[in-house]
């Protein structure tokens, strides 16, 4: 019984982890809590939907027992590109002018406003009803005694793990990744050493938004595509980032898994209706006991 909830939790946790990475990066490098990040997840899911629908005519079969084929992979990449563009556009229109005027809390509030705007643009363009990438019904197979997962769920967990490793290599091996870490650690020092901070900011959005798009499509693949999905995920995302220690990429991954598992395992003890509130309760406990999170150092 618990094994099944753990498995479901890891699937949800993979989604939350990818979303929380972007949140923690923007928090660290741009120094504000971006409430609009959840809406980037939603937009990623809907951009993905557009690609999947566009390719619906050229269906080239599906991979093995997965519910999708090549079009979905193209959609993942396309959604990442378009969501990055959207993030850069929102940054350019809203956050950049506010960064200039040096008002920190206005930035957070503007992101709250932006999240509502982005969500309502989805309602205007796509309508309020839930959507799915595929209508085929997936059969869950027993992978361990008492634990059943669909091929799609396994795909989500594996691809999330691969992306985290790629991100790790990017941050530790590439010049740009090192520049991003340096900027996050000490902005003034990074500027003095000649790091192009504007470039770092842009790449922060691109990396964060791409991972958000993938997370959004993961949620769409394993649950459904809904305008409010990102808004409902914002709290788990923050909980994951805070739990892991805000600013820490590995903390965000760990926090995402913990939150995802906690939400699904909680169903054993409380009504599933309160599943979303579990993240909030964990977050408050972390704030009380260890405000810097598990892997965080900064205050």
């Amino acid at each position, binding site marked *: 019984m618990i094994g099944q909830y753990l498995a479901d939790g890891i699937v949800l946790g993979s989604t939350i982890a990818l979303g929380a990475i972007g949140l923690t990066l923007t928090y660290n490098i741009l120094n504000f809590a971006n409430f609009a990040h959840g809406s980037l997840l939603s937009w990623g899911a809907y951009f993905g939907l557009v690609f999947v629908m566009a390719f619906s005519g050229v269906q080239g079969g599906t991979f093995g027992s997965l519910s999708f084929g090549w079009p979905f992979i193209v959609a993942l990449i396309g959604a990442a590109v378009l969501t990055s563009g959207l993030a850069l556009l929102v940054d350019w229109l809203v956050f950049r002018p506010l960064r200039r005027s040096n008002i920190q809390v206005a930035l957070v509030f503007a992101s*709250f*406003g932006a999240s*509502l705007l982005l969500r309502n*643009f989805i309602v205007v363009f796509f309508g*309020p009803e839930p959507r799915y990438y595929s209508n085929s019904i997936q059969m869950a197979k027993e992978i361990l005694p008492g634990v059943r997962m669909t091929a799609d769920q396994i795909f989500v967990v594996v691809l999330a793990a691969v992306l985290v490793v790629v991100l790790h290599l990017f941050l530790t091996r590439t010049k740009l990744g090192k520049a991003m870490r340096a900027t996050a650690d000490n902005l003034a020092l990074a500027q003095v050493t000649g790091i192009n901070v504007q470039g770092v900011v842009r790449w922060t959005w691109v990396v964060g938004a791409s991972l958000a798009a993938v997370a959004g499509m993961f949620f769409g693949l394993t649950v459904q595509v809904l305008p409010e999905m990102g808004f409902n995920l914002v709290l788990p995302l923050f909980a994951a980032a*805070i739990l892991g220690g805000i600013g820490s990429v590995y903390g965000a991954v760990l926090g995402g898994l913990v939150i995802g598992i906690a939400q699904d395992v909680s169903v054993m003890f409380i009504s599933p*209706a309160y599943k979303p509130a579990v993240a*909030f309760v964990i977050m*408050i406990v972390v704030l009380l006991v260890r405000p810097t999170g598990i892997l965080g150092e900064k205050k």
Partner: protein
Amino acid sequence: MSGLVSYLVFFLILAAIYGVVSLGLNLQWGYTGLFNIGVAGFFAVGAYTYAILASPVTSGHLGGFNVPIPLSMVAAMLVTGVAALVIGFPTLRLRDDYLAIATIGIAFSIQLVAMNTQWLTGGTQGIYNIPQPLANVFKSNFEYNVFFLAMVLLILFVVYIALERMVHSPWGRVLMAIREDETAASSVGKNAFSYRLQSFVIGSMIMGLGGALYACFIKYISPQDFQPVLTFQIWAMLIIGGSGNNRGAVLGALLVWMLWSGSGTLVQAILPASLQVKGGAFQIILIGLVLMLTLIFKPRGILGNRRAIIPRAKQAP
């Protein structure tokens, strides 16, 4: 003509109720710099407390206490104050962003509770037939609404005067000192945390009062009334009117409510029936655009004359 007048009365009652809530937020944000984006949650606590206490015996949810209306209003404020204490205590020491995340979390959780505790709140069905003061005295609905408007305006005025006196007292000056420079305020022996908590609790109690007035006027509440959009509207009212100024908070409530109802009417009039369901989305987008433009071009709002926004410590690019 009489239709227009009665609509105007209806419009002004809601504007005044939102004015009360906006004043509560102004104490927290405008004067103390507390970043509460869970307004809808505190508003909901007030509304539900009032509805449950004042209602006669009903099936479907907790009720039947028949508590007199003024007492129910006071109880609504007290319960909201307790909720604010519980949420403020762990989070008010931390950076503003944490308070924002915590308050939106509490608002979200309150909505979940309201939706799922059928025995307490009536669940998604909501609570009907919420009692109104002197409901049997007036002959027509219009006359009653005129009375209600006078009552709400009186309450708005009392809250306004009380807040004006508070923020211009030594207590209020400490709040503003903390808002501007916490280190300096602490260095002269002021316990910033304690003042923050007081401001947060009092501001939330005023929001709870607003919620109780809303439940009392509309006579029906359901979880639908307490969406994050409400928080967004109240914030838009305060920012556009001018935070750090109580008159600005009330003016903003009037203007944004006008914009909201006006655009609602417009959406109904010009959009084809097929797009009507999306009308609400268009309204939010409109308010959002006005708000963004205000934040970027006039961050202090129309009447905000004080430096109501704290500059950040670490400067980002």
